[in-house]
């Protein structure tokens, strides 16, 4: 589970690392990805696992679109820039949830006949559900991919653009294009998470909220802008949640996560690996 949190967080941190934007619509994007998976599965019978590249591409496009239509505008604004971004994406999130409810109804849907669903994998004495394992594996792959990306030309351009986009414009880098792609990748990451989740989780218009919240905590814990941070934080959170539930009443297990977050931030106000 921790890795899944991490993947959602990765997408978020990328977007943030780009331009100091906290995307409050992340949860809604996750929900969109899950619905997309469900729809495609229902109409074409394509197994979720095989849908990964398809939905990732779909979300990529959505991310770019969101950037172009909404976010680019927010960058023109210097006054209260951060607030505008927060509340724009927040409004977007509410809008998307409403839209989903309108289109899909609020009943729960789920994918029953998937390749991974319901099977388990045994490692000696430990029995793990296959969907979870697969999610873990894919999540790791996504992280590796993101890592490599940050080391490439593009990744560096991304970083530079964030630091000082005026200077960067001078050397011919189109900020809008770079950021657009960055948003696309971030959205694709959460899209992959959505597909993986759809394998074993139920789907409803509200499903994104809880995951998104944990993602935000993960990103802040790991440090805004750090991909490695998001990964580590995601894992820490997953672990903490499980441990806390064993020790105290499970309804309080999220408190463990929150306490860890606060504790870490007392000592490292920029998160574990934060660059900002």
């Amino acid at each position, binding site marked *: *589970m921790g890795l899944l949190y991490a993947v959602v967080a990765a997408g978020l941190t990328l977007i943030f690392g780009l331009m100091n934007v906290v995307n409050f619509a992340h949860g809604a994007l996750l929900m969109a990805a899950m619905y997309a998976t469900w729809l495609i599965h229902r109409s074409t019978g394509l197994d979720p696992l095989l849908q990964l590249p398809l939905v990732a591409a779909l979300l990529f496009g959505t991310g770019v679109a969101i950037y172009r239509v909404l976010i680019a505008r927010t960058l023109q604004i210097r006054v209260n820039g951060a607030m505008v971004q927060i509340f724009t994406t927040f409004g977007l999130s509410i809008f998307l949830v409403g839209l989903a409810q309108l289109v899909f109804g*609020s009943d*729960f849907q789920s994918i029953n006949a998937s390749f991974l669903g319901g099977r388990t994998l045994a490692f000696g004495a430990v029995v793990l559900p296959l969907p979870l394992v697969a999610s873990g594996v894919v999540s790791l792959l996504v992280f590796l991919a993101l890592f490599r990306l940050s080391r490439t030309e593009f990744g560096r351009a991304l970083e530079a653009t964030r630091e000082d986009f005026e200077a960067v414009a001078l050397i011919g880098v189109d900020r809008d294009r770079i950021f657009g792609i960055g948003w696309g990748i971030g959205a694709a990451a959460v899209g992959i998470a959505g597909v993986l989740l759809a394998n074993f989780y*139920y789907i409803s218009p*509200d499903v994104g909220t809880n995951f998104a919240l944990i993602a935000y905590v993960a990103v802040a814990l790991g440090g805004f802008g750090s991909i490695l941070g998001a990964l580590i934080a995601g894992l820490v959170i997953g672990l903490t949640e499980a441990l806390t539930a064993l020790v105290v009443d499970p309804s309080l297990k999220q408190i463990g996560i929150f306490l860890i977050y606060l504790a870490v931030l007392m000592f490292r106000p920029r998160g574990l690996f934060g660059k900002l």
Partner: protein
Amino acid sequence: MKRIKRRTVLTAVGASVGVGFARRARAVEEVKIGAVFPLSGNAAAIGQDARHALETMAEIINGRHNIPMLLGEGGGLSGLGGAKVKLLFADSQNNPQIARSAAERFITQDGVVAVIGSYTSATAVTISQICNRYQIPYISADNSSPSLNRQGLEWFFRPSPTDIDFTKAMFDFFAAIGEKTGEKVQSIAIIHENSVFGSDSAKLQARMAEAAGIKVLANISYQANIPSLSVEAERLRAADADVVMPSSYTSDAILLMRAMHDAGYKPRAIMAQDAGFIDPAFIAAVGPLAEGLLSRSAFAIDAVKQRPAIPAVNALFRNSGANKDLNDLTARELTALQVLGDALNRAKSTNNMALRAALRATDIPGNQTIMPWAGVKFDETGQNIKGNPVILQYQKGQWRAVFPFEIATAAADWHIKR
């Protein structure tokens, strides 16, 4: 000039003294009834179902469907000269403040004669309180929290059984089936979501278990809408009680069943506190995992012999846009409107005082409804004392009534022996 002044003075006096409003009874074409349910948000499915249920009953009253039950002949409300029932719906978003505003709007702007609601206890509290202040009856269609009829309100009416009745039915069943098959329940594991529904339910279950000498091996509470219940499922598996007793809403119910399955745990018996577990969406989501699941219910859809109106009503419900069978919640909501309609007929007036008197005098025999109850008769707190719950079991794709044995339509599948 003088006329206007007098009216203004009267209104001012009336408002400031807070006198009960006496509505003039006059010949009516239609009777407006307000319904407040969560029509959006995460309980929207329930709210929309409630809407279909109420619309179905309104259709039965207003149309001519000749269904073998009270008000089934249709043709409007006979006691009011054939007046039609007009339903007004408002979304509560499960928010107590919005629910209260909606009820207030219905009462002050739309002139409803009564308000029906509301699914959650929190919204029921605010709605019933504001109805009480305006002296308009509130019919609690599907709120089961026992504390609601103990608020000291005089305009509160609840046809449906409370959680105390429901939980008692569960333990009565344990005792009875234990007697019958020799496999007595000796231990239970409780798992509940931690809002008012789950917590109340768990408290009752723990108390009744203690009284029955049954050990409570685990009492797990979890935060509703949490992403994962795998840890909780593990704890249940470790406890390995005779019966697992969950109280969850739909999404958590799905999560729990899957989590237990993933943990390789198949409980010997599961006795659910209704809610999410009887939601058709739950069944659709977990498929074969639901086989053998037991739940309390206020409604038994297969009790057709004793309640011949069920097939016709169910057909109407399906066609109203719901596309699913009646279940515990929708049946109760439908019946609530039936009770209200009956009271309106007997009151022969839309005056609130007359309506309340008629409600208080309600005495409907069970076989005039679709519910497996002995009947509908309210005590001084507005609670129906003749509503007895049943225990259902999901057998081969259908919910069958298995208790009380007198109205059971199938034998319970009960194998808890180790």
